[in-house]
């Protein structure tokens, strides 16, 4: 069969064009599939944590101390409170320090010294958290001759500093130069301008960064193993070992006892809900405060 002048070239173009379109279509499917596959673990984790964790959540879980090994009942109340205390302690150390470093980097960030600080922030963020645990063990636990909530809080606090410093710096840098100049032009001292115009104006955004890093630190386990240890009792002072939810989940997860495994799932559910809810709330709040949300 012959058609009118189907030059070899145009035929080739036609074929390659078809192939190119096919490849494009296939790749679009690949992209969507990649996204779907990437979110499978999220749903799987969430599904299993809810399914196996929900039955473990009862009144006892939130109000009772752990039962002796292998006995039914008991709860994780001390671990829940322990985590709250550790996180508050970590915040006391980590938030002011982190925010101040963030302010320093954004407002005085051009010197060589500031470059060193920025480098330290990046490096501290990349140190494995277990190494921080080793450090605090030598720094606090050995001299105090005691595993303690203080040591655990310090380890978590150190972990918070780089994230908070970095988000604070980034947020403050978003403030336009003309606002700074306007402040200074009015004769306001620079420190007042920084604190009362720049920092105050970004309070909400900084708080978001802070809350997200608090949420992250609440789930940390590794740095607590050699610092806070754990405890079967209620909080007995900051110089005492203290129970925490992540460590308790770890201990229960590797145990052979079904009662404990079930409570590990329950603990995981509480932890995940806390993290998810704080993430969602802060993001929504930020979005509402700033019109469009850029996280």
């Amino acid at each position, binding site marked *: 069969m012959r058609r009118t002048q189907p030059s070899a070239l145009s035929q080739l173009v036609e074929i390659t064009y078809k192939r*190119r379109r096919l*490849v*494009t279509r296939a790749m*679009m499917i690949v*992209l*969507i599939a*990649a*996204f779907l596959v*990437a*979110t499978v*673990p*999220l749903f*799987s*984790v969430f599904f*299993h*944590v809810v399914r196996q964790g929900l039955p473990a959540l009862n009144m006892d879980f939130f109000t009772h101390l752990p039962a002796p090994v292998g006995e039914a009942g008991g709860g994780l109340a001390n671990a829940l409170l322990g985590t709250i205390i550790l996180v508050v302690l970590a915040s006391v150390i980590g938030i002011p320090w982190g925010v*101040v*470093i963030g302010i*320093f*980097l954004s407002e*005085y960030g051009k010197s060589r*010294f*500031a470059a*060193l*600080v920025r480098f*330290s*922030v990046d*490096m501290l963020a*990349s*140190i*494995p958290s*277990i190494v*921080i645990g*080793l*450090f605090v*063990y*030598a720094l606090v636990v050995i001299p105090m001759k005691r595993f303690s909530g203080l040591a655990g809080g310090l380890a978590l606090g150190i972990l918070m500093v780089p994230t908070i*410093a*970095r988000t604070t710096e980034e947020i403050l840098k978003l403030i336009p130069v003309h606002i700074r100049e306007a402040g200074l032009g009015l*004769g306001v*001292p*620079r*420190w007042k301008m*920084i604190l009362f115009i720049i920092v105050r104006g970004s309070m909400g955004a900084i708080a978001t960064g802070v809350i997200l890093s608090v949420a992250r630190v609440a*789930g940390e*386990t*590794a740095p607590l193993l*050699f610092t806070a240890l754990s405890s079967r009792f209620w909080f007995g002072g900051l110089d005492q070992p203290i129970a925490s939810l*992540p460590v308790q*989940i*770890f201990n229960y*997860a*590797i145990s052979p006892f079904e009662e404990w495994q079930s409570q590990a799932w329950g603990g995981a559910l509480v*932890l*995940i809900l806390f*993290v*998810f809810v704080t*993430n969602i709330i802060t*993001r929504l709040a930020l979005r509402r405060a700033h019109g469009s949300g850029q*996280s």
Partner: protein
Amino acid sequence: MKIIRKRRDIHHGDRYFYFLLKGLASGLPLLLFLIAAFLLKASWPTINEFGAAFLFTQDWDPVGEHFGVLAFAFGTIVSSLIAIAIGAPLSIFTALFLTELASSRVAKVAGFLVEMLAAIPSVVYGLWGIFVLAPILRIHVEPFLGKTLGFLPLFQGPPYGVGMLAAGIVLAIMIIPTITSVSREVFRSVPQSYREAAMALGATRWEVMRIAVLKTGSTGILGAVILGLGRALGETMAVTMVIGNRADISASLFSPAQTMSSVIANEYAEATSATHVAALLEIGLVLFLLTFIVNSLARVFVWRASLGRSAR
């Protein structure tokens, strides 16, 4: 007179403020220095005793007091490479989907879902790894791989479920949000005109992505992947829970292994001899240096991709 005094006041206030900030900020380099100094000092006994051999022996024998980091370095590096092999393509494609394909509304929700992967605590991934992932691997995946690809040494040996493969998969999941979000930033920073130019040349949608976006952003993508690698190298809890904790170098991905961070988590509080403790701290030092190098490298790449913003 009044004006001059006021000015001096401003200067004083500013100076105090500056010194206050600087003082608090200088605590951070100091902290970093202290951590490094502590690790160096505490591991000095084994550095002295074993020297460079520590880095190249795989022996980990607390009874005979022979210690070497090699088996753990192998575990850390191989599990992280598995994580990159699985996680990097997924993340890069996901980032492409989010920036180039999805509508801004879809991208917002989808991006949030991917970011939530980073919010799940490590210990919860470990729990999930033990009770969900490991049984799937043991019952379905590993026997299947053994049957079909068993001629490769990678897929030989008994299916434990927990082991190198399980650790690699969990790590892959944990680094997806890192690589995705940095890649996303990289793709966003590619000027729109590049895409338009490619389109004007008659490129299809995928070709636009390939030529204009992926190629332009390749340095940044590399940075993102290395950043993901950095995160995988230091991860502790989830890996400790699923890797099987055995100091061994094996070709098979099914076999148990141990990473540098997991051996510290397992043995540091309970090592009884001074040499054993020092050896564990030297592993901490090696880990510290390794993550240090990898993250510096990543930052160089990400910065070079002119992504002045966050690199997390």
